[in-house]
Structure formats: structure tokens, C-alpha cells
């Protein structure tokens, strides 16, 4: 297995106090929490932080971790020395840890048994837990519907209360009209029931992959459409891409930059469907030739135009 440098993950020296570890963790957790972070690798970073903190916040586990020595670097091949957890009360992952150490990740092999969930002393018959997962789809997928094969790592709790991750593959139809943030409920695909209890449900939270042209606002789709100054001023017929293909539309005469033109019902399908908003973005041609410069000069002479007229008033 690969060694993990928990101090480096939290960005602290090995000599810091427990209080400083907590502070470093809290600060980074706010930065990388998947619900608030804009970082693309937030989910992974947040998980790593949680793992590092779980070990280092506990003085005993921290001491055991420190005992592994300082010569290791993250990602380096690593075998725990025999009885490395001797003398500590938490006791590591147990006898099988060594045998399967290569297959497990660092935390699980070293501290595995401590991560186990408490065995629930629930009723003998109960509905299984609902499970959640996030699924990324393209905006185009929600216009047509899509079929996706999804790999999920689902936590499974055995009779002793140990948690392990089980890989599960599901073929799912993503229906037309799904919006970002909506959940798809797959009845009975969640955790197994207790006793004769029914299985829980699996909820897939849908999010759209970032699109180079389209933005999404609820059921509406937004597109920035570049137009030439004369198209905005004089009006034009233009061809506009939508997630569902090209459409023809008219730019009205006398349009200002930033004007929003609505293509009713061309947003995300539904009842009612969303709208597609085309936002005009006036693009200036470069004055990179003599005729182009002459044209700009002609404009200057033709207009009595002061763009800063209201700036000083």
C-alpha cells in the first residue's frame, strides 16, 4: 500500500499542537467542502482531509502514526512494521491487516477497525437505508433522455459492524427533463433491509457537466450569442445552437449588448418546459486593415456619440 502523509495533507508541521491541527482542519474543510467549494477535486480533497484529521485529532492514534517514522513520503510503497500499534488501546486493523495490506488503502489497513460503524441494535425487521450518489450528465442528455452505466461504491456493514466499500454497477435510464439538483429515485436499490424489511431506495443527484456554451438556471438555459455591431443595430437573422440542435432566430433592430432574447419552450423539457435565453454579446471587429480603420473613422464622423456623456454629470 502507499504511505499517506497526514501532516502534509493538513499543511502543518509534525510538531504542532492538537489545537493547531484542529484549526488547520477546520480551515481546509471549509475550503474543500463539496457543498461550498468551487474546486473540481473538492470531493477527493475533503475525504482526504477527513481521513487525516480522524487520525491526527486523536492523540493516541497520532502517537501511533508518528511512531511509523518521518522517513516516509506520500505515495511511497509502505508496509507497517510488525506490532506497530502495540501498546495502544485502539489496536489497528487486526491480524488480517498485514495479509491484505497491499489491497487496502493506507487508512483502512492501519486504522481500519476504528472506522467501523456501531452495530445498530435496531428492530429485527426494518427498511434498509437510503443511499445517495451524484451523477454528472451533459445538458444534451436531459433534452433526449440518456442511458448511463453507473459505478457506485456503496458502504456495506457486516455483522461485526465493519464497513467496507463494495463496487456496484447499475444501468440507469436518465429520463428526459431532469434538472440539475433534482434527484432520481430508484426504488429498492438502496441498502438491504433488516430481516424481512424492504430494501431502501437509491437517490441519484443529477448535476450537469460544465458546458462550453450553455449555462443552466433551473429549467432555463442561457447562451451568450456573439453578434456584430451592425447586426445588433440593424437587425439580423442568425442561426443559434441549442442543446437540441440549430434554430433560426431574429435579432431585433436596435438591440443593445446584454439584451436577452427568449426562445420560449426551448429550455429543459418538462411541463411546462423551460426557456432558452439568448444573451447578445456585441463583438467589435478589429481595426486591423486600412478599410477597417476607414470604416471606424466614418462611424466617428457619422455619430455625435459620447459614450461617457453620463459619467461626469
Amino acid at each position, binding site marked *: 500500500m502507499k504511505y499517506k502523509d497526514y501532516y502534509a495533507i493538513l499543511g502543518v508541521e509534525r510538531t504542532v499542537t492538537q489545537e493547531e491541527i484542529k484549526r488547520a482542519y477546520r480551515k481546509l474543510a471549509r475550503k474543500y467542502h463539496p457543498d461550498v467549494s468551487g474546486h473540481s477535486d473538492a470531493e477527493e480533497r475533503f475525504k482526504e482531509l477527513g481521513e487525516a484529521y480522524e487520525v491526527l485529532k486523536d492523540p493516541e492514534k497520532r502517537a501511533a502514526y508518528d511512531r511509523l517514522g518521518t522517513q516516509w513520503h506520500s505515495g511511497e510503497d509502505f508496509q507497517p512494521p510488525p506490532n506497530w500499534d502495540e501498546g495502544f488501546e485502539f489496536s489497528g486493523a487486526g491480524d488480517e491487516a498485514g495479509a491484505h495490506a497491499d489491497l487496502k488503502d493506507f487508512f483502512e489497513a492501519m486504522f481500519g477497525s476504528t472506522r467501523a460503524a456501531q452495530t445498530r441494535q435496531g428492530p429485527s425487521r426494518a427498511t434498509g437505508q*437510503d443511499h445517495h450518489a451524484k451523477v454528472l450528465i451533459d445538458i444534451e442528455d436531459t433534452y433526449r433522455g440518456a442511458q448511463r452505466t453507473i459505478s457506485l461504491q456503496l458502504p456495506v456493514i457486516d455483522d461485526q459492524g465493519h464497513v467496507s466499500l463494495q463496487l456496484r*454497477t447499475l444501468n440507469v435510464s436518465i429520463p428526459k427533463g431532469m434538472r440539475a439538483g433534482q434527484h432520481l429515485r*430508484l426504488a429498492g436499490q438502496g441498502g438491504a433491509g433488516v430481516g424481512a424489511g424492504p430494501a431502501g431506495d437509491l437517490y441519484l443527484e443529477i448535476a450537469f457537466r460544465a458546458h462550453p456554451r450553455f449555462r443552466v438556471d433551473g429549467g432555463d438555459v442561457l447562451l451568450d450569442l456573439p453578434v456584430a455591431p451592425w447586426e445588433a443595430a440593424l437587425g439580423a437573422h442568425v442561426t443559434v445552437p441549442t442543446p437540441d440542435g440549430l434554430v433560426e432566430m431574429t435579432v431585433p433592430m436596435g438591440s443593445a449588448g446584454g439584451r436577452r432574447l427568449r426562445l420560449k419552450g426551448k429550455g429543459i423539457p418538462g411541463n411546462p418546459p423551460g426557456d432558452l435565453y439568448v444573451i447578445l454579446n456585441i463583438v467589435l471587429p478589429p481595426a486591423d486593415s486600412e478599410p477597417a480603420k476607414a470604416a471606424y473613422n466614418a462611424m466617428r464622423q457619422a455619430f455625435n456619440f459620447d459614450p461617457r456623456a453620463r459619467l461626469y454629470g
Partner: protein
Amino acid sequence: MKEFEPTWLAGQIVDEGVEFTLVELSRTSGASAEEITLWVAEGVFDPKGAGPQEWRFSGASLRRARTAFRLARDFQINAPGIALALDLLDEIDALKTGSRRSPGN
């Protein structure tokens, strides 16, 4: 649990047409009924119905409840803090989309 399902599973979209009771929302989101009740008091959700027994939450509440649940769990945020955080997240979302309608359009 089967390793492979040969057919395409069809799901149900949890949209405005779906309603959750307090017990159902708690079960599905992972948040306790007590937490959700405190969030309702802060205006995080606006369920239909007079009291907790009759409350019906719209399908769109699920996402908010999930986010609230994770934030409360991971940062130990109390109910007013959750309400503030969700409002700010909504605002950030709106700013990112540039969805503020300019007047007159």
C-alpha cells in the same frame, strides 16, 4: 445484492410533484426530524400544512435538506447558521449563472 442488472433501471424524478412527510424527508436526507423542524423554524423550508404531523415538503426540498444535513454534520452549524449558509449558496449559484434578469427584458 446483484452485481449486474441486465436491464435499464427506470427511476422517478423527485420534482415538485413529489411530496415528503417530515418522517420521509428525515429518512431520505439523513437529517433528524428535530433538525428539520428547527430548519423550518428558520425558514429554510416552507412545507404545506399546519404542524409537523401535516407538513408536506416539496420534492425540491430534498436537495436543500441533503446540503443542510452535510453542512450541519461536517461543520457543526446550528439552525440559523444553516439558514444563512443556504441563502448564501443560492446567491452564489445565481451569480454564477448570471441569472439576474435585467429589468425590462
